[in-house]
């Protein structure tokens, strides 16, 4: 099966890793991108691994990925931005999922311009650092989906904050409800057309309006585990690749991510790699529960 026409763009935490681009493979040997093995500990490899596992359940080819070695200086991310701008016309992906990337405004703007020149324009999902840059650019509504957690939602709702580090305190306290922040984020131009807000309850949002809420099952330890947002974005990416609508894809992925907690029974000390092993089983259960059955065989 050939690799699907969806590109995940992110980083691995190693400055010496260079750029890796190619089809993603998850098998017994582990995860590989473009033939390069990658450990799945957290970050974009966790997203890619979850996407691959979900694609297997959905009976579709896994995505491609463009990953840069970047331990925080931003140089690797800059190379990824440049490579993407150069190769996007030839790749013509149906969708792009942006992840842990250095939130550089100029780099973001170049990438978005290149995307906007595509016809048809790819579907755009942004999470983590690239979501920060997209919001700061003032062009959040050019994106189809952001996947913020509760704290990042407050950042999206703060029209002055260029990074969650500067979110104003009055938005972070208990004085604002999630629906209020969702509305404010949309009204001030900080939200994408859809949001999947991760929190005590997960919310699926279309143009500032909540279309569904996923309140359980609850596994409190999941909040402490680094990478649970990555597995969620990986699963929603796979569902979008499979042609699901945005809102049903978000709802199914959110439920599946919660089922990961139920299946793995994690403690706050559990690494996300343990959860990735349950992605297939969790997604199958979530699809059954939401009436969005996976293909048989």
């Amino acid at each position: 099966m050939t690799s699907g026409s969806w590109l995940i763009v992110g980083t691995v935490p190693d400055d010496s890793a260079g750029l890796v681009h190619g089809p993603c493979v998850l098998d017994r040997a582990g995860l590989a991108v473009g033939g390069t093995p990658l450990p799945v500990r957290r970050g974009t490899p966790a997203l890619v691994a979850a996407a691959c596992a979900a694609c297997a359940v959905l009976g579709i080819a896994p995505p491609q990925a463009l990953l840069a070695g970047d331990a925080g200086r931003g140089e690797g991310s800059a190379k990824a931005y440049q490579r993407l701008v150069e190769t996007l016309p030839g790749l013509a992906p149906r969708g792009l999922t942006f992840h842990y990337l250095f939130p550089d405004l100029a780099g973001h703007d170049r990438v978005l311009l290149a995307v906007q020149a595509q016809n048809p324009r790819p579907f755009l999902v942004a999470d983590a650092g690239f979501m920060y840059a997209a919001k700061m650019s003032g062009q959040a509504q050019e994106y189809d989906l952001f996947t913020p957690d509760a704290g990042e939602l407050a950042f999206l709702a703060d029209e002055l904050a260029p990074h969650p580090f500067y979110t104003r305190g009055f938005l972070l306290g208990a004085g604002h409800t999630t629906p209020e922040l969702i509305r404010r984020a949309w009204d001030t131009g900080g939200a994408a057309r859809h949001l999947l807000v991760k929190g005590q309850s997960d919310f699926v949002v279309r143009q500032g309006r909540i279309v569904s809420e996923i309140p359980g099952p609850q596994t409190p330890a999941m909040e402490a585990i680094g990478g649970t947002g990555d597995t969620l974005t990986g699963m929603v990416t796979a569902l979008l690749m499979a042609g699901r609508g945005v809102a049903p894809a978000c709802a199914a992925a959110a439920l599946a991510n919660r089922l990961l907690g139920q299946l793995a029974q994690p403690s706050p000390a559990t690494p996300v790699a343990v959860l990735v092993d349950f992605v297939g089983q969790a997604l199958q259960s979530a699809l059954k529960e939401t009436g969005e059955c996976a293909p048989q065989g």
Partner: protein
Amino acid sequence: MKLDFRWAGWGGKTSRPARQPKAGEGRGVMAFAHTAEVIRAEAALKAAGFDVRVMGPPPDMRTGCDMVVEFELMREPAARRILKDAGLEPLAAAPVRAGMLEPVSLFQAKDFGQWLMVRAANMKLTVDKQSRIIVNISGGGCPDVPALAELLVGRSLDEAPAPLSRGQTLCAYALELAFREAQRLLPGPL
């Protein structure tokens, strides 16, 4: 419906201000080529006794994941000497002006029984209360977060390097705040 900020706290709710804001009068900002230089400059100036803090740059100076060092403007020559000795040179220095942003100054702690999770801004750090070993790091979006997690997880609050000593970004700065707060809440044996 409230945001998911039901932080039980360490024996109760423990939100507290990290520091008090100061009046901008008589103060200036220094911009650097990279966030990592801001972090080093802040450390060098603090070590030399300067009253400094990091802030969000005014809108016309923002490039992305960045911050500036706020300092006493009248001491700029001395500050520059300190920085030069540290191998640092600011790109620009200017008086404080409108539009600068305060870093997040609230911490939130959540008690998981055996473990304590401390949150600063978008970063969460979870520690085993008995062994003081860092067991998980979550949140954040800058690319040094996974690198810092690999460095810190599995080490105790005493053994782990301070996130700012290795980090490059605002997420690293937030993680540093959570790290210090965890050290404060879980002090080691005297």
